[in-house]
């Protein structure tokens, strides 16, 4: 049996999970910059990515503070290797086509908005403050990704087919967001964060309503890929993403501009 987690260590893990989710998804979405189907979508994707990177600065900034002296949010983002990341696998999978990118965004935004709503009542006022700030941004991320999922799902024959394929591919990655472990138990005990499993019902109601409107069918299987948020095993895609994201700091340690 594992020794019980110290509260500080569990808190650090929780902050890394929050910050790594927004960091990795923010980077993924930024890959669209200059490549989106139309200018308005390009700007929208870049803005969404920017919000998520901003949120990362707050979560990883607090993580660095909890970690102890000498660490910064930048150190955590640019100098850790794949096995130290704590994001869910959903956010590291490649973008695929525009439809898959927006489906992934919707599946994440729906969870994110519910999670931040709960975190606004956190017993830790720093967590509550970050959640309050981020939730304003995430509200319109969700509005946009849900609108786009409906527009494309209930669109042409081709856009419908692509959105259904995106959902079939991504759905097995949604379940990891609701898995609980001893880090979560510690956070619940301290009143810092909710039990992830407790968000599932609200999530299912929200997601089913939108996907129904999008004329898409949720796969029946509840099988879930996992290993990202615990760090046990990431997909092979994360390493490739990090080589690009961390390249500059790895090649020129400490570079600033």
């Amino acid at each position, binding site marked *: 049996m594992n020794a019980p987690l110290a509260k500080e260590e569990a808190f650090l893990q929780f902050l890394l999970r929050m910050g790594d989710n927004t960091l990795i998804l923010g980077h993924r979405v930024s890959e669209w910059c200059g490549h989106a189907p139309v200018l*308005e*979508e390009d*700007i*929208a994707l870049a*803005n*969404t*990515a*920017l*919000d*998520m*990177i*901003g*949120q990362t*600065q*707050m979560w990883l900034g607090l993580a660095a503070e909890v970690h102890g002296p000498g660490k910064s949010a930048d150190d955590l983002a640019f100098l850790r290797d794949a096995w130290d990341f704590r994001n869910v696998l959903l956010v590291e999978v490649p973008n695929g086509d525009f439809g898959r990118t927006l489906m992934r965004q919707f599946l994440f935004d729906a969870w994110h908005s519910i999670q931040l709503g709960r975190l606004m009542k956190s017993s830790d*006022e720093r967590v*509550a*403050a*970050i959640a*309050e*700030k*981020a939730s*304003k*941004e995430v509200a*319109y991320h969700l*509005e*946009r990704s849900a609108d786009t999922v409906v527009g494309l799902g209930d669109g042409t024959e081709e856009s419908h087919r692509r959105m259904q394929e995106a959902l079939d591919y991504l759905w097995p990655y949604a379940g990891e967001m609701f898995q609980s472990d001893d880090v979560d138990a510690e956070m619940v005990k301290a009143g810092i964060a909710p039990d992830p499993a407790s968000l599932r019902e609200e999530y299912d109601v929200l997601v089913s309503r939108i996907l129904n409107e999008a004329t898409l069918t949720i796969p029946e299987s509840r099988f879930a890929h996992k290993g990202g948020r615990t760090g046990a095993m990431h997909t092979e895609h994360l390493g490739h993403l990090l080589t690009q994201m961390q390249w500059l700091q790895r090649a020129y340690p400490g570079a600033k501009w």
Partner: protein
Amino acid sequence: MSQVTTQPSITQIWDWLDAVPDPEIPVISLVDLGIIRDVAWDGGTLVVSVTPTYSGCPATAVIALDIETALRGHGITDLKLKTQISPAWTTDWLSEKGRAKLEDYGIAPPQAAGGPEKCPNCGSKHVTKVSQFGSTPCKAHWRCQDCLEPFDYFKCI
């Protein structure tokens, strides 16, 4: 005479800050934007609390630099900038003066209804949303269906 011999009053400092333009929308000041949350003397140190509009806004670093440059230009040497994220910035904090200047400049000011009241160019109420996202994180992209001009709308958050 660049050295300040007596501490400038808090009102004086607010006036100085009201002359610092927002780097992205230079027609309004940082005070108009509502991001200066507090100005106070802590002994000999001037503490200015600033809140970001959007957490990823790239202008944040420039804003901090502009505040510092302006206040140092007025002879303040002992200065501390504090980032304050709670309560989160809201467009309710835009000043009336700032809202009017935005509209003059061609940016529709935020409305509780969630969309612009009228086209900032011709005043028509016949407007339509192009995208929830515009040229900066704080703006959305709209179009007037009468004069056909596209325009920025300052999002209400």
